[in-house]
């Protein structure tokens, strides 16, 4: 698919104080129908979007964190989390949801979608994109 463009969605904000995280997720899911090459990046407070065990009952907003687990079904399996952002918040990969995708070409083997990368590595990944959208 040589005419597919590389789309990167950057998520920078914590999930429920503003509408950015949910809007981003909806755009990603809608965009997935167009079969582009999609990547997601989570930096700064955006890393909180992927936290395990989210509970929104006290804030009265729908907990949309289970929806990230559906990304694999939408063939979105390049999810980059910035190492420095995790460390600055005292978080590790274990604090995040375990997101996987199934590789059709490898007998539906389950593979990890999340990759923790340094700021410098992320900059290089941004460099390769055709379209970068920031939320």
């Amino acid at each position, binding site marked *: 698919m040589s005419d597919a463009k590389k789309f990167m969605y950057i998520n920078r904000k914590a999930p429920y104080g503003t509408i950015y995280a949910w809007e981003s997720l909806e755009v990603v*899911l809608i965009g997935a129908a167009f079969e582009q090459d999609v990547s997601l990046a989570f930096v700064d407070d955006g890393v909180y979007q992927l936290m395990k065990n989210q509970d929104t009952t006290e804030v009265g907003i729908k907990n*949309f964190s*289970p929806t990230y687990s*559906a990304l694999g*079904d939408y063939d979105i399996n390049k999810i980059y989390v910035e190492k420095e952002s995790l460390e600055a918040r005292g978080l590790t990969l274990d604090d995040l949801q375990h997101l996987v995708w199934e590789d059709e070409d490898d007998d539906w083997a389950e593979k990890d979608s999340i990759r923790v990368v340094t700021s410098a590595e992320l900059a290089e990944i941004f460099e390769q994109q055709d379209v970068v959208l920031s939320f």
Partner: protein
Amino acid sequence: MASIEVNGKNLDVDEEGYLENLNDWVPEVATVMAKLDDTELTDAHWEVINFLREYYDEYQIAPAVRVLTKAIGKKLGKEKGNSKYLYELFPYGPGKQACKYAGLPKPTGCV
């Protein structure tokens, strides 16, 4: 606001007939909605409706039709995981029509 009558109760629906309140759903909702479309629900319909409700429960979204087709094929067998089978059951579009009967919102990305 439009509404449909189910078990003697009036339930709010939007201008396209989708339930306004997810929690209003009971199986009879699907039966009543199908009747409005002149459709008789069979076990094959229910299989898809129940699948969608489980999917929503787990992921909090109604899946895009491509994702639904793939997931149905995996769960219920290859012969059911194709658009021909699903469109025969739900001629108005498996995403739109089946999600409506299941009491879910219109699928994300469905135009």
